[in-house]
């Protein structure tokens, strides 16, 4: 279980548990009464790929496939693929003999390239030392869902009796006011949250619900506003 370092309204901090909110179960694919296995397998050897066939048989190789099945390597095709590692080959498909260069591209909304640069290492700004801070900026729940796309949701849970009181208090405050709290990261507590190294920055919005002694505290993460690309931004 991952932990989250977080502060409350009084800027008291605690470390709590981050859970995973899984979608409700939906039907799975299969055959009634049968145990099926969904597998990846080798369907063609390299010699059976289009480029190899063109090289061996010329562009018009269709009839050759019908006549002699040259694309099927009986020793290789059908093998199950288990775990594998991602590798990179040269643009010509050859094995690389030294480490490739990694470049970061910044692409404009219209698809054009704005910048090409060495990848920047981005540090997480919510860590064991730096908490996600309660900024005091409250937004009505109805306004949040009409303004932001909530990309991910992380339920928070207490890890002991003290953190139960801590999280319950936050949940009750937000429940009673029907608001969400903007959470900030970094030393200033005002930056978007970056929860993992090299992760994307996300607005964090905390939502609380209580029912008697029970509570739900959800940290919503958003990296998208509910709006239109610049050229089409007008009231429908």
């Amino acid at each position: 279980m991952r932990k989250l370092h977080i502060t409350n309204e009084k800027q008291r901090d605690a470390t709590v548990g981050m859970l995973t909110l899984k979608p409700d179960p939906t039907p799975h694919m299969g055959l009634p009464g049968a145990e099926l296995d969904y597998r990846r397998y080798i369907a063609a050897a390299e010699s059976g790929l289009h480029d190899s066939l063109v090289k061996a048989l010329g562009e018009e190789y269709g009839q050759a496939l019908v006549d002699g099945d040259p694309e099927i390597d009986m020793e290789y095709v059908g093998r199950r693929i288990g775990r594998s590692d991602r590798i990179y080959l040269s643009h010509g498909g050859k094995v690389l003999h030294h480490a490739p260069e990694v470049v970061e591209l910044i692409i404009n909304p219209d698809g054009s390239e704005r910048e090409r640069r060495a990848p920047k290492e981005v540090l997480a700004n919510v860590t064991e030392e730096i908490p996600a801070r309660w900024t005091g900026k409250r937004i009505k729940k109805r306004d949040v869902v009409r303004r932001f796309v909530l990309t991910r949701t992380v339920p928070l849970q207490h890890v002991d009796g003290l953190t139960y009181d801590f999280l319950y208090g936050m949940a009750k405050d937000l429940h009673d006011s029907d608001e969400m709290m903007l959470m900030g990261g970094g030393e200033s507590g005002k930056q978007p949250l970056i929860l993992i190294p090299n992760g994307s920055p996300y607005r964090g919005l905390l939502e609380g619900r209580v029912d008697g002694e029970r509570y739900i505290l959800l940290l919503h993460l958003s990296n998208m506003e509910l709006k239109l690309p610049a050229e089409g931004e007008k009231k429908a």
Partner: protein
Amino acid sequence: MARQINVIKDGTESIFDFKKVDRAKLYGKRKRVVLDEDGENCVKAELSEDGSSIIRSGMTMQAYFGPDGEWVESKRIVGLDEEGNPVEKVPSTLGVGQELEEVEPGALSQNQTIAVYHLSPVEFDEALKKKLDEGSIFRFSFNYRADYSAEVGFLLSNAVGIFVLVTKAATPEWCQLKSVAVESFTDDSEIDDDLDFEMF
């Protein structure tokens, strides 16, 4: 004719054209590319676990296999519920009027949003427009193409326009004093992957 989103409130149907909105179209995107010694883009491939095979794009397929390893044709595969019973296919909801249900914001915030569409009205019930302008949020059944489960659509508007958020239903669990989060040493990697937002 382009397919449309049709919704019904109090017996009156409204019809909308729709267009997908995604993050890259709003803000652009950042991506990492791997270059070879000639400065050209490298080709992604896989190395099999035993190191014996380089698996290139186009060399693999996926399929269902029975207990004896026999291949099962995909046309025989159906949706099954948790008990293993076949379920009915859910038709596409596009072009078919779907009943709207007004909901509180929490019904949307707890779900997982998977797509956002901007709507342009073709026929727009005045009463529905008034409710949306006031900030009301409506839930309806949404299924882009026929499959074995419908998603949950939410219709709302803001100063910019009218939107549908397509979501997967999720139900957060209540926390109680007696049930504390338990330290686990087995699933960290899974949750780390979950939080690798770059993949989205």
